[in-house]
């Protein structure tokens, strides 16, 4: 039987199953094969906070979406072309996102009466007409896997576990993915259990062979490699890129990294990653709580380390007082907030941009803090270095606002040349700066307004700092009204004066009347939406903020250049509030807080509406 091969320019696949079905691993491996093949790609894992929700239920569904293409892409895709549903719950939870005509590969073995009942299906959707508008491929994935592993000395339960590898094999055939990497990966992952490795490889190959021989799949698909900029690439998630960025910041600042952290979703992976790299002299300290995490980081910074704490929103709330102490003692500190849906515990595994105002204002007193927000998973690397640069140069805590979408999403990353990374080192102060050999810990650099950073162990510069207001220059305790006013204004001026690059506007023809502006992780969906508008002949300009405090100097001028300014945010308008207050520009807010990133199509519609209303 010869099978037809169809060319596609892009595909969106969603693997969905029970949280015990190994969907994240399946997605990761398919991603690795796709990266190796040379497609551009973007991924979106989506999993429950429960480690093992009751099997077969809707809350237990875990999914992994992958968008890959023969051209550069910006998002994990709006709607899947293919859904792999390992059980009825996975089908039910994801069907709403699936456009008519899309493919569904369903594991029929799991469509039992009991499993159907668990999610409220009266009859099997595979057998009634309810899926007639989709192309359903009913495949008994579990029993085929068990059959393929008959010759292995495995219990039925263990054999069934390999069904995700069977599915991966089938999809790898369907989309012409290379197989060598997955086989090598399985050999390494189960190096200590060679039987399990062999069984998984056998299941993977059986899935591939099944695709090639079964009549159920008459067409396979090819997506040519993308033409990306020359260089060495790897696939990277936001959390991993952020961890690498912190390591690079340590090397480039010549400061030993000290991480004080308390486990919290979705930031823990940064702690895990940094803990693996002790050979860089990195000290990772799992503290007793969020407050101790930031406290230890600040203590280490006082001692001359690059102090970092990593957390999510609830942790930032707890750290606020210590961040305020870092503001007033003017010590470098990096506070990484991987934002998640709130308030309170909220939805720990879902994304949001709702901590911006907390980062700006969530401390007592006038307590300004610079804010940097990465715009894509790989940009987390550069954003971490930029946060460190500001912290060290200006002796200030810096908030780095990532989010759950960036943290767990991944994309190909063109590796930077180490030689091109900025040198962000600053000298410690080692000599007296006052009269008669005295040391004035709050005598500032006239250009940056940064104070000297003299660390313990430096003779002659013994000094005391603290949370009580300090006299300008000497740093002695001061309750003097005029001094306090001066210090409050000086700390504010220091942050306002940080050297951030100007905003750049993307407007190919230079005649757009509508500007869409965003910040942080919405870059991908906004840029994808802008492309759609332009493809349809529409005119729209785009700009994106990586620095939220201080804002680039030309922000106001740019905002005022356009008839209409649209600002999509995954919150209820937090940046819009700041821009309106600061620049008196009537920013149009578009807000959704569903725990998910925007879809490009949705934003294209919103942009089009704004363009239409401008005419």
């Amino acid at each position, binding site marked *: 039987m010869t099978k037809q091969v169809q060319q596609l320019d892009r595909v969106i696949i969603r693997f969905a199953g029970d949280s015990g079905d190994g969907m994240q691993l399946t997605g990761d491996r398919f991603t690795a094969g796709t*990266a*190796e093949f040379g497609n551009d790609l973007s991924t979106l894992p989506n999993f429950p906070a429960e480690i093992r929700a009751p099997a077969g239920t809707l809350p237990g569904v875990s999914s992994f979406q992958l968008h890959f293409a023969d051209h550069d892409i910006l998002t994990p895709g709006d709607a899947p072309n293919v859904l792999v549903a390992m059980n009825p719950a996975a089908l039910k939870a994801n069907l709403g996102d699936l456009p008519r005509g899309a493919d569904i590969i369903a594991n029929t073995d799991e469509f039992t009466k009991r499993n159907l009942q668990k999610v409220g299906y009266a009859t099997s959707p595979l057998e009634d007409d309810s899926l007639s508008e989709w192309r359903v491929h009913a495949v008994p994935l579990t029993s085929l896997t068990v059959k393929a592993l008959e010759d292995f000395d495995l219990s039925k339960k263990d054999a069934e576990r390999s069904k995700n590898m069977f599915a991966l094999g089938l999809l790898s055939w369907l989309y012409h993915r290379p197989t060598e990497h997955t086989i090598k990966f399985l050999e390494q992952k189960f190096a200590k259990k060679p039987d399990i490795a062999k069984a998984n490889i056998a299941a993977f190959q059986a899935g591939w062979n099944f695709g090639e021989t079964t009549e159920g799949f008459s067409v396979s698909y090819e997506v040519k490699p993308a033409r990306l900029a*020359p260089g060495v690439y790897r696939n990277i998630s936001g959390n991993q890129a952020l961890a690498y960025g912190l390591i690079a910041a340590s*090397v480039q600042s010549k400061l030993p990294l000290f991480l004080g952290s308390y486990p919290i979703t979705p930031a823990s992976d940064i702690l895990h990653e940094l803990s693996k790299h002790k050979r*860089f002299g990195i000290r990772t300290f799992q503290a007793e709580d969020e407050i101790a995490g930031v406290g*230890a980081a600040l203590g280490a910074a006082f001692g001359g380390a690059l102090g970092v704490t990593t957390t999510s929103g609830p942790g930032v709330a707890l750290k606020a007082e210590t961040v305020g102490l870092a503001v007033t003692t003017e010590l470098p500190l990096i506070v990484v907030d991987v934002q998640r849906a709130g308030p309170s515990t909220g939805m720990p595994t879902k994304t949001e941009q709702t901590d911006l105002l907390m980062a700006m204002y969530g401390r007592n007193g006038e307590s300004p803090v610079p804010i940097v927000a990465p715009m894509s998973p790989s940009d987390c690397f550069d954003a971490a270095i930029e946060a460190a640069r500001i912290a060290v140069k200006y002796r200030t805590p810096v908030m780095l606002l990532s989010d759950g979408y960036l943290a767990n999403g991944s994309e190909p990353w063109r590796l930077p040349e180490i030689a091109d990374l900025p040198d962000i080192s600053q000298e410690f102060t080692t000599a007296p700066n006052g009269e008669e050999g005295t040391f004035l810990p709050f005598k500032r650099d006239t250009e940056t307004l940064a104070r000297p950073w003299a660390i313990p*162990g430096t003779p002659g510069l013994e000094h005391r700092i603290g949370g009580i207001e300090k006299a300008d220059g000497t740093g002695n305790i001061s309750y003097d009204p005029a001094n306090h006013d001066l210090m409050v204004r000086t700390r504010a001026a220091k942050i306002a004066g940080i050297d951030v690059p100007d905003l750049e506007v993307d407007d190919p023809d230079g005649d757009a009347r509508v500007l869409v502006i965003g910040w942080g992780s919405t870059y991908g969906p906004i840029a994808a939406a802008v492309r759609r508008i332009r493809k349809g002949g529409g005119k729209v300009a785009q700009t994106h903020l990586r620095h939220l405090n201080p804002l680039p100097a030309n922000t106001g001028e740019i905002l005022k250049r356009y008839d209409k300014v649209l600002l999509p945010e995954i919150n209820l308008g937090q940046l819009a509030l700041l821009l309106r207050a600061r620049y008196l520009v009537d920013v149009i807010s578009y807000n959704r807080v569903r725990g998910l990133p925007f879809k490009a199509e949705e934003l294209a519609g919103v942009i089009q509406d704004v363009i239409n209303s401008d005419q």
Partner: protein
Amino acid sequence: MTSEPLFASGKTSVNGKGLSLVPKTDVKQSLKDFKSDQEVRWCPGCGDYAILAAVQSFLPELGLKRENIVFVSGIGCSSRFPYYLNTYGFHSIHGRAPAIATGLAASRPDLSVWVITGDGDALSIGGNHLIHALRRNVNLNILLFNNRIYGLTKGQYSPTSEVGKITKSTPMGSLDKPFNPISLAIGAEASFVARTIDSDRKHLQSVLREATAHRGTSLVEIYQNCNIFNDNAFEQLKDPEVRDDITVRLEHGQPIASASKAVVRAASGGLEVVARDSVSDDRILVHDAHNPDPSVAFALSRLDEPAFEHVPIGIFRQVSRPAYDTLMAEQLDEAATRTGAGDLSELLLGGDTWRIG
């Protein structure tokens, strides 16, 4: 590109000597060297003055480079302490000094790091940090000034105030049972636990001597009189009429007894205090501060319950256990030995990579 270790790591094996990694000075130091230019601003008569003077006159004995000494404090009257010492100092926020000091000491084994705290700071708002610092055993000297009252906020009861304490916030008497800081510290796996008193400089300094020689976290509870809000809280221990009968001095290897009382094993399995002349000398318990089993030290810490009838002072417990900062540094060294110092380029290329163009 490789990164060199930037600060002293834990390569030196450290047994016992608390400050052996801290550089020594050749210059002869005196009390004056440790006085800062700041005017001391505690209430006249406050016990803090005596503790400050005792510490200032003790520090020269250590012979450390002054710039390698850091005092970290929280919030409260006692936490002003760092301003008055001409060393590095960090007056932080309420309850958090142990956490801040942990980060500093864990990353800088070449520093002598002290935490100055009070009963409210250490046992109420900062209770969590205190117990975790103790179990972790970072190289810190924690001085807990216990005056059994909130002074800086003007006289509310504290977590060490006796039940029924009448204060502004408890006009009908406080309801909650106080913490016993020594019991708490022993329960929290502390490796060095001692108690002393502000008015006995000699004893205070002898305890500091042992605390600084101990590598790991040392907790020293210092009974400190607040003459404004809780005057004479420890008067029995100072009154020449009764103090020798009440004070039970703990000295390693010595019988545990006051002038008129002795500590013996009770039939119940615990300890009891009896009249000294009612037992033969060989029945009096001999103090073993180095006993790995903490139960006797714990029982000793309970002798003063419920009232101050007999109060042990001295070192309850002093056991050797690896310090956290040493272990942490050893892991860094081991990682570098095993796989070589970090190389950024190698790190970035470490995953599955592919080349385009």
